[in-house]
């Protein structure tokens, strides 16, 4: 094993961190260490353009020009017993979000809306600690109904249903769930400030079971929840250690009624620097623009992000928040000459 000595040497390398990244990440495909990611996050604004260009080169070299497009929908909204401080769906906070269940015809309509954008992924999400029998039964019925429709028969179906037992992992794999999303949300050292009703390790355990069952692992988090830059670097490297197939990057939407309702929106420059830093930590991973980019970036910043390391997007609306109309993102990809990943490339 030579990786550890190399990393230690790189951490103390006096060269500019982008020079190191060019050799280590772009040429060799090895993600940055925690110390190196922190140095990237601390780069001054006048290095941003250079950083984004390198992150884009890394993405093109190790992932290619295709962009993976996904749609998501909330099957069960609100009333969650957990206390994730960013979440408007927690039943523990006075959020205006009320509980709702989407019926099967509604779920199929949502899948059709997603497929119509050219998306290859459709993610079914529920605000729960973990799924009960009723929810799993609803998911099974929903998947069967989606598969029965010609427009959606071959779309990849992902799920995000909270923490799982081994039996539940096996059941979802048996349903043909392609990818499972379970975000670690933030650095392990910051997690107790964000969630108190379960632990980072419990989430990690679910992710390991998902991987072992042969499903793809989707795991990301939210930037802007009071974490330090060092904790952002810690998080990027912890995600890299998980080796996820996909990392969705969200930027905090300060939702009314939640403990974070008065937190500031992450500034665009800081967000772009974070996107690029995560790309340099995760050179081969699908890095997806997710919630909050509309508030953080606006229209222009979204394009910069696509040219700064991102290679996947959620199109349309999110779970309880709205996104840009899908057509705007599709036009942006066309303008950037970035082809949408075709379904046959995912099989």
């Amino acid at each position, binding site marked *: 094993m030579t990786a550890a000595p190399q990393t230690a040497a790189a951490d103390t390398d006096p060269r500019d961190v982008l020079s190191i990244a060019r050799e280590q990440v772009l040429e060799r495909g090895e993600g940055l260490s925690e110390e190196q990611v922190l140095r990237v996050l601390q780069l001054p604004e006048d290095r941003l353009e250079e950083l984004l260009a390198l992150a884009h080169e890394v993405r093109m070299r190790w992932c290619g020009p295709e962009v993976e497009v996904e749609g998501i*929908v909330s099957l069960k909204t609100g009333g969650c017993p957990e206390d994730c401080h960013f979440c408007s769906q927690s039943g523990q906070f006075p959020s*205006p*979000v009320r509980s709702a269940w989407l019926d099967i015809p509604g779920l199929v309509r949502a899948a059709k809306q997603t497929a119509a954008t050219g998306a290859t992924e459709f993610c079914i999400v529920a605000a729960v600690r973990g799924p009960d029998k009723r929810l799993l039964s609803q998911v099974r019925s929903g998947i069967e109904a989606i598969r029965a429709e010609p427009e959606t028969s071959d779309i990849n179906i992902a799920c995000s249903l909270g923490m799982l037992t081994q039996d539940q992992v096996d059941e979802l794999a048996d349903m043909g769930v392609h990818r499972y999303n379970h975000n670690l949300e933030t650095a392990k050292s910051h997690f107790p400030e964000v969630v108190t009703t379960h632990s980072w390790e419990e989430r990690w355990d679910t992710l390991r079971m998902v991987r072992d069952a042969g499903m793809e692992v989707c795991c990301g988090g939210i930037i802007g929840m009071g974490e330090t830059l060092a904790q952002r670097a810690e998080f990027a490297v912890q995600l890299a250690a998980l080796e996820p197939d996909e990392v969705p990057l969200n930027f905090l939407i300060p939702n009314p009624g939640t403990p974070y309702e008065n937190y500031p929106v992450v500034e665009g420059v800081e967000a772009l620097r974070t996107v690029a830093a995560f790309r340099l930590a995760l050179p081969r991973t699908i890095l997806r623009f997710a919630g909050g980019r509309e508030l953080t970036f606006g229209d222009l910043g979204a394009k910069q992000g696509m040219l700064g390391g991102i290679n996947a997007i959620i199109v*349309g609306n999110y779970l*309880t928040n*709205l996104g840009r109309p899908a057509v705007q993102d599709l036009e942006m990809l066309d303008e950037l000459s970035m082809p949408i990943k075709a379904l046959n490339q995912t099989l």
Partner: protein
Amino acid sequence: MDEFCGWCGKSTGEGEHGACASRLGLVDPPRFCSACARRMVVQVTPAGWSARCSRHGESTSEQATD
């Protein structure tokens, strides 16, 4: 003229609702009925939203953009 703000649920005749309007236009569907300020049951889907008030019925994103 709506009587109540769809974002914060307060009277539109009182206070400033510019920030509420910004959020409604960008990232949030309405959560409060504009006629009675009841919290609505809202379902967001990839291409729209529907919001149901127990007293005043359903509204949708299609109606809102008409």
